[in-house]
């Protein structure tokens, strides 16, 4: 069966949608839980988006497709540092943020219309680390070592 590649990861974080939204965008936060990278973006629909590595390189790039502050972000996302993944073209990455009692339910969906996608396989290993570290950062003030470099 030839199906598109997709994963859906969910984590519950003891925080507020506003704090999570800030942590997802601001470089001083992403540098702690997203492998020392930051995002260059104006955060509006149609704006160019890229993940910048500590050496100034671009790991991934794309465009903002949808943005609803503290609620939802959809990005067009292409790998720029792995040729095999780059060749697959653009994927679609969605953040969904929902308040559930004292926690925030944070859902990351990453998908591409390519069977057995190299991009999805590659990022599927990184996201659980990023999510755990983001959760740790927001709940304790410290990110996990594994995502600091």
């Amino acid at each position: 069966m030839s199906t598109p590649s997709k994963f859906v990861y969910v984590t519950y974080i003891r925080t507020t949608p506003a704090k999570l939204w800030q942590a997802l965008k601001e470089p001083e936060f992403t540098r702690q839980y997203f492998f020392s990278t930051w995002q260059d973006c104006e955060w509006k629909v149609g704006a160019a988006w890229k993940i910048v590595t500590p050496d100034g390189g671009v790991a991934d790039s794309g465009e903002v497709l949808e943005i609803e502050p503290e609620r939802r972000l959809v990005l067009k996302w292409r790998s720029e540092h792995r040729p095999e993944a780059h060749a697959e073209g653009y994927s679609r990455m969605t953040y969904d943020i929902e308040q559930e009692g004292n926690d925030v339910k944070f859902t990351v969906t990453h998908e591409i219309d390519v069977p057995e996608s190299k991009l999805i396989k590659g990022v599927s290993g990184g996201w659980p680390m990023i999510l755990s570290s983001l959760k740790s950062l927001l709940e304790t003030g410290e990110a996990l070592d594994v995502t600091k470099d």
Partner: protein
Amino acid sequence: MDAVFKALADASRRKLLDALHINNGQTLGELCKHLTMTRQAVGKHLALLEAANLVVIVWQGREKLHYLNPTPIHEISERWIGKYERHRLQALADLKKRLEEKP
């Protein structure tokens, strides 16, 4: 975390997770093919996995698709992989506890 261990402590449920690991995003009907039990029994196992946040449901039109969510398992591994940094981890745990106690 108890819910995660309880959910994992069953061979049928681990088999369902294995099936999703191989082919993510399956319907109940597709998942039933991996187990020799009634559709209703498979549904109950899936509900337990969903309650433990190990399976995430995504509706695609009228189809209910099941996705494997490894995030809770990663959190468990973090818990013990960091064991050898006891001092630092203890400080973090205390900080987390203090922050979460505040009303």
